[in-house]
């Protein structure tokens, strides 16, 4: 059995194990499974040859032969740099989240089973190379998420869960429509094959694309884009995010922000853009505008939030705007930056949500206005908080800086320069709201309430173990970005960029 299959289904096996094992062992199983996944991911990292742009560790197995095409739907998994980067991210964030879940009390077994199922779904999405398989994993991941928010969430959990579910399904069906169209016209379920076809179509110079009609391509692309944009979530499909985050339990927020949002970007990079380069280029302007809006608007809305967690949720909206901005620009630098932003944001936002969780556990509220002076009560906690904040607002030494500067330079290079400049504003606003929050929550006089150290102890071991690795990775990614970017650079260089530039050049971008 290949590595990938192992890594994907290992959590599933662990889930079944949880089912039979006594409930008190569930969390142990979860952590062990996540660590195992992490180890496997690292092994993959070591073994994967970054020079090759093609898929590695490929495993195919006949699954539903004859559906549409001769070969039909396959069990077809493989990994390239982009996938690997995100698998690493998933494994890492999930591990920290699993540790963060250590103190879940309600329906422990169910919780950890759902958690593991979710993990399988996420990993599956990143390794699936068959459209059907991709879609199945994509949806499978919704179900546990729905329950995790709905059962273990906050007071308005049912509303948040249904909202999350509805939104994402809305996106998914548009995605499905696109998938059906693609499969219908190309007669293949295999993502690499279809990508090749798209290459050929662009090369051939006809404007038909893989669907044989430009307008159809455009429609399909828009459908798919919306499908993924809901996940990212890019303006104006973002309103599910704050509620989902606010209601979800801390570890789930970490995963939600750390991994789930990335699946949208991944979908764009792996499916929407390669399949419809022409349409993508044509939509570039619109997408850039949306991204610029997301960045600035998200930052502004975050600035006005009174709820700590909501604030951070909106900062996610703002930061994920860089991903679409970079993709829309279509230059190699920009796309690399967008990818990097996904990884950076994955770790940073996970950290931020953990930080909110830490204080929420102690104070049982998230009202920014009611906090103050926590730095003097919980100095260690404050250290991590400031690392996360400054990394997120793009200070050098943190991963956010690399992502932002790369995306900016790349996007500036692209056809939609104006919007790159507009989105620069986001940087200042981001600084503004982070510093304001930092001051209101951690600085100034400590209110009497928070002074008693028994109710407000500094970080527990569990929290240390969660936060420290995240912080280290964040800083590492800020200081030695090349080591991370090399994972996926060649793929972007050899698959995505040629397509887009070819498509762009033909119609003058």
């Amino acid at each position, binding site marked *: 059995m290949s590595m990938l299959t192992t890594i994907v289904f290992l959590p599933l096996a662990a889930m079944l194990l949880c089912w039979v094992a006594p409930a008190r062992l569930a969390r142990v199983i979860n952590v062990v499974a996540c660590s195992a996944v992490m180890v496997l991911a690292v092994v993959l990292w070591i073994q994967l040859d970054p020079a090759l742009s093609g898929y590695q560790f490929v495993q195919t197995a006949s699954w539903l032969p004859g559906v549409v095409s001769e070969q039909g739907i396959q069990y077809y998994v493989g990994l390239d740099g982009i996938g690997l980067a995100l698998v690493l991210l998933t494994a890492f964030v999930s591990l920290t989240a699993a540790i963060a879940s250590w103190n879940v009390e309600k329906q422990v077994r169910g919780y950890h089973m759902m958690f593991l199922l979710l993990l399988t779904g996420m990993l599956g999405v990143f390794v699936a190379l068959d459209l059907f398989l991709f879609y199945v994993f994509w949806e499978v991941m919704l179900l546990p998420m729905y329950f995790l928010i709905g059962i273990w969430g906050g007071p*308005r959990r*049912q*509303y948040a869960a*249904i*909202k999350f579910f*509805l*939104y994402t399904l809305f996106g998914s069906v548009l995605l499905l429509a696109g998938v059906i169209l693609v499969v219908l016209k190309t007669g293949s379920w295999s993502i690499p094959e279809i990508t090749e076809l798209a290459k050929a179509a662009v090369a051939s110079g006809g404007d038909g694309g893989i669907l044989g009609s430009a307008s159809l391509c455009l429609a399909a692309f828009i459908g798919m884009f919306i499908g993924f944009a809901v996940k990212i979530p890019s303006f*104006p499909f973002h*309103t*599910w995010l704050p509620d989902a985050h606010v209601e979800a339990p801390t570890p789930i927020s970490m995963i939600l922000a750390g991994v789930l949002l990335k699946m949208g970007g991944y979908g764009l990079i792996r499916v929407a853009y390669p399949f419809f380069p022409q349409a993508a280029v044509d939509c570039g302007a619109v997408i850039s505008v949306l991204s610029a809006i997301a960045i600035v*608007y998200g930052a*502004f*809305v975050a*600035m*006005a*939030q009174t709820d700590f967690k909501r604030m951070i949720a909106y900062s996610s909206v703002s930061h994920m705007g860089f991903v679409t901005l970079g993709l829309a620009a279509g*230059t*190699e*630098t920009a*796309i*690399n*930056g967008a990818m990097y932003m996904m990884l950076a944001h994955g770790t940073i936002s996970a950290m931020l949500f953990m930080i909110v969780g830490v204080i929420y556990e102690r104070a049982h509220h998230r009202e920014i206005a009611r906090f103050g*002076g926590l*730095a*003097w009560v919980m100095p260690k906690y404050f250290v991590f908080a400031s690392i996360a904040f*400054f990394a997120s607002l793009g*200070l*050098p*030494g943190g991963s956010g*800086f*690399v992502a932002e*500067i*790369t995306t*900016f*330079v*790349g996007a*500036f*290079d692209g056809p939609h320069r104006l919007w*790159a*400049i507009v989105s*620069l*504003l986001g*940087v*200042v*606003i981001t*600084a*503004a709201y982070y*510093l*304001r929050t930092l*001051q209101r929550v951690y*600085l*100034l*006089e400590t209110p009497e309430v928070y002074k008693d150290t028994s109710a407000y102890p500094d970080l527990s071991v569990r929290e240390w173990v969660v936060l420290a690795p995240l912080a280290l990775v964040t800083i590492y990614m800020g200081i030695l*970005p*090349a080591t991370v*970017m090399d994972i996926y*650079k060649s793929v*972007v*260089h050899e698959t995505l*960029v040629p397509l887009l530039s070819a498509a762009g050049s033909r119609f003058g971008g």
Partner: protein
Amino acid sequence: MFDDWLLHLCLIVLAAPLAGFCVQYVWGRRLGAAGAWLTCVTMFLSLACSVLLGVAALSAGAGFDVHLGPWSWLEPGDGAAWNIGIRLDGLTVVMLVVVTLVSFLVHVFSTRYMEGDAKYPLFFAWLQMFSFSMLVLVLADNLLHLFMGWELVGLCSYKLIGFWSEKPAPCLAARKAFITTRIGDLGMMIALCAIGTWVGSFEFDAVFAAAAAGEIPDPWLLIAGLGLFLAAAGKSAQLPLHVWLPDAMEGPTPVSALIHAATMVAAGVYLVGRCAPMLTPDVLVVVATVGAVTALVAGLIALAQNDIKRVLAYSTVSQLGYMFLGLGVGAWHAGLFHLTTHAFFKALMFLGSGSVIHGCHHEQDMRRMGGLRRKMPITAWTFLIGVLAIAGVPWITSGFFSKDGILSGAYGVSPVLFWIGLGGAVLTAFYMMRLYVLTFEGEPRDAHVHDHAHESPRAMTVPLLILAALTLIIGPLAWHEILLAPPTSVDPAAAWGTLQTLAQEHHHAGVVMWLAIAAGVGGLALGWLVFHIRRGSLEALKRPFAGLERVFAEKFWFDELYAAVLLRPADALARGLRRVDEGVVDGLVNAAGRSGVRAGEASGAHDRRVVDGLVRLVGHVCQGLGGALSALQSGRVRLYLSLSVGLLALALLLEHLL
């Protein structure tokens, strides 16, 4: 071989404070005073190495320009290579020495000044971090690398201004500083984008070459230049971004001395000096004008301040203005030399003020001081030297040489700027003398303060003496042709044409010099006269200028203006957008909610808000239709039948029509 030497020295220069930071940050509490002295040692180490580098530079002779590295940092694609590397030339070396020296002295000074503070170790940790970041900035051989140091010093400045962040004022000041400079950084980012786009490498020489070769298309070279200057203006507190610096005085005085007088604020000047070759004439005009205006305006504001540190802060702003003026008019050399001299005498005066504040138990209001010279002679005399230097008293003080250079440069280029500068010079001398007199001369105005005042301990006075000495002796270095030698690629002629060379000749002869001297000495004398001899009739003298004084005291209402034009609107916008976001087109939604049948109990409250805004509208419509449909489902079988048959007939009709 030689390069390896340099490399190792540079690495020590960088590593020492970084190590100091880590140690202090992690074990600071345990180390206590020892930790503080340890940081002094690390600083001294990097000072020593910097000096060695300086010696190396001198021995290497003219045209000393060494590149270490570059080491690949990131290759973001499109064949671009973003490296980090070290560039050693006269400018770098001088900056290195200045930074490490002042930093070292400030460390020593702080060991006593900060005594008894709850966060004593943290203070030194951040001082170390700052020194490190500043050195990174100075050593950088490319813009991106420089930008990282640039942002990091911003962080340290934030941390140190807000060192006492239990109190609101320091918090706000710190935030203001960070965000204001961040606004400036937008310019830098645009410049980076432009360079990254058309040059692909941020390495200075590559960029200059590209700029010279016109590889950067027309508007963007100008924009990039302006962007760089915007960033510089942010860091160096030039109009209109100067507002943060005075507030930054909320930080501990040593910080003000190190960061907000000697080094960080000078980074802007350094940046413009470094990038001078890529600045188009138009940009230089802007630089010079902004500098001159800032020099004047800040001077005027300084006149009416009573907080000893604020006066110094505004004088800093105005001196920085001089530096930009110098760079702008092509008196590149003089500008950067002024940076150097200013670093020493302003650090001297800040530490002096610190000593005063320390001696007076944290009293900062000059109106409650006076006659302190007898109480703290060393502080007073050293301070006086600083005053003389900043006023540019000829031949004995370094300030004279640099300022004179700048003025003559200006004179050679544009009389207007020259006269503005001269006016600024008079003001400087005048208010510095005011400061000195109010603080040290005359009879004490507050018995309590005066009685408890005492000379500061040696750890604080020694740095003062050293700085005073330096202030006096570095003047002759003024025209050293290796240190601070203009980068080869600067072509002043390009900037202001032949006038520039004229300026070079004029620099210390002729009318300009005498005017400058007159301005300095005259200002001092006037100040002495007004505030010391005739102080009895001071009020009478002031009366005609009451209106003006108000304007100056209110700092031209810059803060109020920004609050009204930027901050409040931004907040309002944010709140507005939030409202928009939480219920996009709420009106529509509610309308739909009303028109549609109300959601059933089962579906509960959340049905009415299935999803936000427009999406929620869809939810409402669905709910409404659903309600309507189940309302049709009245249970009346005849109604059903009529509906069915009716619809069938309708279908028939349509079939027939279509």
